[in-house]
């Protein structure tokens, strides 16, 4: 298959919630292999854009293309098969499962879950489980999660849970990975780890990454291109050094900071 010219493309996306316009005519285009930053003050519509792409809140206007294919309005559960994976801003791991099972869940689209194969486990499901386990163990090694593998997910510290969610997204072997604030609540060391994982993931797996992040130092350091949203509108775009120096962006951030102070 020849490589598509663009990975993700949004064309004039509009999303309203009642009277509130969360996204106003947002367009962006991500080239394959890029780490693409998406930033903006709180409530500027970053998560809403991701929700539009992944089908949770389909846009009311505009189109979304993935590798040249129109995926506007697809159901969320069909998006994974296309090669898109995402993590959530607020952790969305499955309680009541071990860390390993949570990560195994990420292999779902590659497995054959059947009631009958479950009954005939030893002759049927086991082979599937073991084959996929190998893929999962690779990612566990990559993200250094060996020690917590068999712990119940509730007992794992928050910073690690973020990494586990990244693992769950990675094992699906997506081509586009969307990370919604993967470093929220992390200390400097954990942030550096996470940034390293993202860079390595792109290097080793040829991923395209859409990264939502509030830590501008990280965005400036690892993103190739970025877009800045403010009140649902795109106010700047380009390489981090240029976009972050844009007057409108500075005002948006200063403005929001002033509002917070008030």
């Amino acid at each position, binding site marked *: 298959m020849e490589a598509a010219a663009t990975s993700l493309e949004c064309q004039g996306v509009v999303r309203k919630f009642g009277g509130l316009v969360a996204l106003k005519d947002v367009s962006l285009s991500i080239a394959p292999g890029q780490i693409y930053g998406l930033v903006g003050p709180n409530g500027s519509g970053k998560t809403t854009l991701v929700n539009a792409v*992944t089908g*949770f809140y389909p846009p009311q206007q505009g189109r979304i293309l993935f590798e040249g294919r129109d995926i506007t309005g697809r*159901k*969320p*559960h*069909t*998006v*994974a*098969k296309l090669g898109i*994976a*995402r993590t*959530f801003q607020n952790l*969305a*791991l*499955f*309680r*009541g*499962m071990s860390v390993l*099972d949570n990560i*195994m*869940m*990420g*292999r*779902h*689209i590659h*497995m*054959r*879950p*059947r*009631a009958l*194969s*479950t*009954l005939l*486990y030893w002759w049927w*499901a*086991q082979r*599937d*489980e*073991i084959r*996929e*386990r*190998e893929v999962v163990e690779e990612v566990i090694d990559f993200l250094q999660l060996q020690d917590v593998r068999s712990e119940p997910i509730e*007992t794992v510290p928050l910073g690690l849970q973020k990494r586990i969610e990244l693992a*769950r*997204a990675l094992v*699906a072997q997506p081509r586009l990975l969307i990370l919604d604030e993967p470093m929220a609540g992390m200390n400097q060391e954990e942030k550096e780890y996470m940034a390293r994982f993202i860079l390595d993931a792109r290097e080793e797996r040829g991923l395209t990454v859409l990264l939502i992040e509030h830590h501008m130092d990280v965005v400036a350091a690892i993103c190739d291109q970025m877009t800045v949203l403010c009140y649902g509108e795109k106010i700047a775009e380009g390489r981090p050094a240029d976009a972050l120096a844009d007057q409108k962006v500075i005002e948006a951030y200063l403005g929001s900071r002033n509002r917070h102070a008030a």
Partner: protein
Amino acid sequence: MFYRLSGIKHVSYAADRQLWPVPFDRYLVIAAVILGITAPFYLSPLYLGSYMLPWIIWATAALSLNLLMGWAGQIHLGFAAVMAIGAYSAIHLARAGVPFELALLLAGLLSALIGMIFGAAALRVKGLYLAVSTLAMQYMIDWIISHVPAISGGSQATLQTPVIRILGFPVDSDAGRYWVALAVCALVTIFMLNVKRTSFGRALVAVREKDFAAAIIGVNPFYYKLVAFWVSSFLGGVSGAVLAFCYYRAVTPEQFHLDVSIQAVAMVIVGGMGSILGSFFGAALVLLAPIVLNNFVGWFVAAIGLSLSPEVLALIPLILYGGLIVGFLLFEPLGLAKIYDNIRNYFLVWPFRHARR
């Protein structure tokens, strides 16, 4: 102590995923299986027929319902209706000359089909509304069964089950019927044990816990809830048929009314949602509690010399029984299985008490 985790190393993924990694648990299971198979030899026919047999069958039914409630997180207040469909279809099929094994399978399929149709309708709503729509299923099936003579054999009718034939051989002894029930129970238990370690079971739990997170990794939440209804109803239908053939040896509509549905739900909750061992505990407690409470109340009332009307006497055990269930919901929502787990955990880490979790 007897439980030891140290020194147990798994060198393959298959071994890591075995059902009972701790050797002592394995010995317990082997002992339980041997005791189960040989029960007819050491239990009196009375105990076998009126305690062991219904316990095994109800544990099967509780396991089936637990798949839906414990794993998929969907409540079902009409499970007795599902069992009734299984019982009635098996009986009619067997009377029409269909071999028992096949009748059991077809009964399961029919229950699954009807259960799933109701499930599909019920799944459009959530929580309390789901509970109410499954309740509606209970009443509709009840009504249909008692008002269609072709099914119930006329109002107030009792249909006798024909003799069970396995591979053509008649099974017409208490022990034989017990073993049939035990075999079905074993199959369902094996299935449920495996649910814990396959992508199928994980998908159910994922949908229960966070349906949006499940969706984004490619799990269709509605589909899996529906499949849970399908499989649970299939197994429920089979257990209903086994209940009719092996225990009652006859069917009447009264055997599958709402109180029976509530009983099944109680077994799952008291035993422990999402626990296999719990379904066995729950079935035992729910079956035994009324008997024990009845005797106890009778004894107590006589002991303190109260004279109560029979109606009140009949009600008190029910009240205590309701209190028991409320108590579990309040104090140990994870059920008897959790209590067992706590004890096991105590020994597992003994003497390092701080390592308990």
